[in-house]
């Protein structure tokens, strides 16, 4: 699964997610990626989210919308992503990751799996990582 969330110069936000599924999955099984509110969500006034991980768990808690609802209630993007993934883990025992941009331009990501490849471009600085607590930066 891959995903992107972007805020443009007009403050408009879009989100996108694409996946090739799981090895050996049942024919016709669909995960969260094509489900708006689970794998993907964007609303300019609050933020945008793209998710990855155990599809059935993400669907059960509508992970993307869950992050948006926490932000709508005043939580910042980083806490919203972390708390949503912790909830998914505690409530349905699912692991995954999510990226997020808030309406104020805060960029956030978190994952509860072993690894997640991520990258952030903001203010001409490119950040990226893959292992837990890995954080590299370079000027664009």
């Amino acid at each position, binding site marked *: *699964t*891959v*995903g*992107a*969330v*972007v*805020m443009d*110069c007009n403050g*408009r*936000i*879009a*989100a*996108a*997610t*694409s*996946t*090739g*599924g*799981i*090895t*050996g*999955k*049942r*024919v*016709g*099984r*669909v*995960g*969260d990626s*094509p*489900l*708006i509110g689970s794998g*993907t969500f*964007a609303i*300019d006034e609050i933020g*945008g989210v*793209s998710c*990855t*991980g*155990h599809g059935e768990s993400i669907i059960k808690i509508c992970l993307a919308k869950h992050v948006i609802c926490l932000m709508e209630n005043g939580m910042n993007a980083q806490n919203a992503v972390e708390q949503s993934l912790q909830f998914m883990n505690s409530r349905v025992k699912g692991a995954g*990751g*999510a990226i997020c*941009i808030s309406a104020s*331009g805060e*960029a*956030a990501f978190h*994952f509860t*799996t072993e*690894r*997640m*490849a*991520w*990258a*952030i*471009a*903001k203010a001409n600085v*490119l950040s*990226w*990582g*893959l292992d837990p607590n890995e954080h590299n930066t370079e000027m664009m």
Partner: protein
Amino acid sequence: VEPVVVIHGGAWAIPEKICDASRNGVKLAARKAYEIVKSGGSALDAVEAAVILLENEPVFDAGKGSCLNAAGEIEMDASIMDGTSLKAGAIAAVTNINNPISLARLVMEKTDHCLLVGEGANMFAKECNVPSVDPSTLITEDCLEEWKTFQKYTSAVDSLFNNQINSLTIGHD
């Protein structure tokens, strides 16, 4: 407004041998999207361009490099959403196109629907003149190996317990 881009390449136990390619892929996708918005492009164009780049990179599980299902076939899913209009487009279980995210955007922009699946999604792709490809061009050596291992495993477990394994959801998408 200061533009911002965030990219992910999937959350799972990424094997050591593809870590660097995964890091490079998400960096390239972030650069691509950032260039678009820095030069005044839209967030929608930027997310689509970033995901196309990742779909074309075989190290990621999307587009080229998708996993094989129980029947040894590829089924791809994608979605895109515009935060201004709340318009959204998605496709599921498409089998023979290079970039599912572009078809999802066509669903958003050319239909009143949010989601088209299976044969209908493939028919819509044809209607929109999206070039179809031989699904074998989307299958990588690694995915085939993983599928063979999976087959061996499930048949071994199956014969051991002599019961039909309904759905072995190993981990993540």
